[in-house]
């Protein structure tokens, strides 16, 4: 059984799930995905990307130079997508269990 992903890792993989993104795009997308609750910083994102690249979950898609600054796009690999899917399944199972028990609590009164 695989360990649960940490929240920043989960959010970075989610940000890359639909399309390749550059570092700043990941920062902004994570903020949007979390409804503004999570604001990752560059140090955290690039430490995570370093590890995700080593694990083969994320790869460099392409590079651009915009206003004389390097912009590198990252994409989710098939391995990364499979890991994210496994995490979503795990979280869904937990969420369903919590919902079920909350409904039982409301139906049968508080314990």
């Amino acid at each position, binding site marked *: 059984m695989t360990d649960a992903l940490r929240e920043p890792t989960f959010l970075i993989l989610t940000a890359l799930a639909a399309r390749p993104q550059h570092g700043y795009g990941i920062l902004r997308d994570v903020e949007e995905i979390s409804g503004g609750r999570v604001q990752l*910083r560059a*140090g*955290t994102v690039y430490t995570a990307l*370093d590890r995700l690249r080593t694990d083969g979950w994320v790869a460099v898609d392409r590079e651009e130079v915009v206003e004389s600054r*390097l912009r590198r796009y990252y994409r989710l690999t098939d391995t990364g997508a499979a890991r994210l899917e496994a995490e979503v399944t795990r979280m869904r199972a937990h969420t369903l269990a919590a919902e079920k028990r909350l409904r039982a609590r409301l139906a049968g009164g508080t314990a």
Partner: protein
Amino acid sequence: MTDLERRYRRLLALYPRDHRERTGEEMLAVLVADAGDRSRPGWRETANLLWAAARLHLRRLVAADGGVEPGDVLAVVSLLGPVALLAGAAGSVHELAWWVRAGAVGQLPWSEQVPDLPVWLVWFAVAVAACSGGGAPRRPAPGWGWSVSCCSRCSARPPTSGSGRVPAGCSSAWSPRRH
């Protein structure tokens, strides 16, 4: 180059060399874009970058792929040296506070009030050399720091509890040397 960029470059210089070469310029672009109107890095951003640099150094140290850079090892050792000494200094400060509370600080020789002072001074010089970015004193500085620390520890006298320096009215069992 703006002042903000220069400050970020200084922080990014603390990252492992391979990471810096691969993503340094890219990170700088993200940091500058995320800074908005700021003219200097915020303390949260600075703390985050320092913490991330330490984690990346540590990850490379424990990596089993053999790709450990000697320079990175030196950088981590340089960082841990002062931290370890400061942890040790807490005991000395506590001891000094005990003598002050006992009203006997005048009885304690100066060299025993701050026994690690020479080592602290050397590590302070190491920190200055490391932060200055100068090439010549930077590389051997941590080596000097550790050498002086080791010599200081090896030549330290054993504890001398109950040796007569304990103020009158104080049990030798509560001598600060026994802490």
